[in-house]
């Protein structure tokens, strides 16, 4: 059994977003990692990893990953509506992560920022940070065990 890192979690999140038919129908600009290429049509969605600390316990490894998921649209009503669709798809979602058990997937913060495109037109950016906490057991040769023998002399 080998340890898996951040990649399967990201794949699971993206798979959940891409398989959602409602999102696929409304996001004409597509789903992009980091930022969208220039002249991409709106509305679009971007995702990126914000933080990913790892906690090692005695027999397992816990990953706590924060994803920035933002929707960009040309009017505020659409941006809010599409963000609600993303929230419905990801908040408390059961992600299927290869080699790991998903404990929590929830939105921990929301953000709304004004922005402008290449032509100077106003763009509405709405979204937030989604936290995914997963757990996986460490291989047998990496686990720590403690044993103690006590002898009571009579």
């Amino acid at each position, binding site marked *: 059994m080998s340890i898996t890192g951040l990649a399967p979690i990201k794949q699971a999140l993206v798979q959940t977003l891409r398989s959602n038919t409602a999102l696929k129908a409304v996001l004409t600009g597509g789903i992009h990692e*980091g930022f969208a290429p220039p002249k991409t049509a709106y509305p679009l969605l971007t995702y*990126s990893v*914000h*933080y990913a600390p790892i906690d090692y316990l005695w027999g397992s490894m816990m990953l706590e990953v924060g994803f920035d998921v933002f929707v*960009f649209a040309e009017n505020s009503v659409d941006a809010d509506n599409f963000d609600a669709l993303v929230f419905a798809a990801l908040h408390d979602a059961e992600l299927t992560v290869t080699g790991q058990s998903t404990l929590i997937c929830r939105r921990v913060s929301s953000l709304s920022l004004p922005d402008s495109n290449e032509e100077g037109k106003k763009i509405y*950016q709405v979204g937030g940070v989604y936290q995914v906490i997963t757990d996986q057991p460490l291989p047998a040769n990496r686990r720590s065990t403690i044993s103690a023998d006590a002898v009571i002399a009579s």
Partner: protein
Amino acid sequence: MANTMRFNGARLKQRIRAIEVAILNDFGVDVVRAARAKAPVRKLYKQKRRKYKSASSVGDFYVKAAVAHAERVGIVKSASQKRYYATQLQRTTNLGRGDPVVKVRRPGNRNQALKIGRIRTIKMKVKTDRGARDFASVDRFFSAHRVGAREHSRGEVRDFYNKDPKTGFMKPIKPQKGYTTNERVDAQLSSRGRYEVRSGRAAIEGETGKIQIGGRLKKSITASGAQESTKGVTNNIGTDVEYAIYVEFPTSHNAAQPFLLPALHEQKRHLKPRLEEAFRQAGLKRG
């Protein structure tokens, strides 16, 4: 007579608060240090120059012709300027399919190019002995309105000019006065760095009173210190720079370069063990 012991709740609470304040102060210092290590800094200093490599000998020929043309019209004067100009030229495109175009890439972002009509492309027609693709003369410069754009309009050479809305004539833009540096510092700065110092964006006062160029975001990350409030003990860690949120989170133009939240989450897991250890040493925790 039974032993009695008075339990002073207020004093106990005071001791606990003092420990929490001390630990939270240390936590704030650690988060600030980690966030400053992660905060991005704009490249305002000259980077190691890359040598220009042409894709073909024909490309080399057109680049040399473009540099020679630039020298004739007075854009480049010294040998070092010629070398720099040559590194900024992309290889020729559309070879054999139309007029060769040598693109000139100048530093600066797209919004800046829209505001200031800088020279972006050179369209060259150079005489060669390659048969049907011979051209008669060297053409003029063309100004373009976007980075990397091809011929947009014919006209005079324009650089650092802007159209006066009242008269309609082009008038030169004078750079704003900000901080001035000496020749030694100017030699180390890139053109972007010199612009940012001139306009006052990049130069900030250092702790010793000296002017510091670049690193404004990194320097601005601070912790307010642990303070008691109705909610408990709080320590506000952050930055007062107005563009920090556009660095921390992604925008439509740029990917995120997070520095604050990753630092917080890295240090957060050490907070509880530190508190427990402090309480244990103070004799406040059982076991």
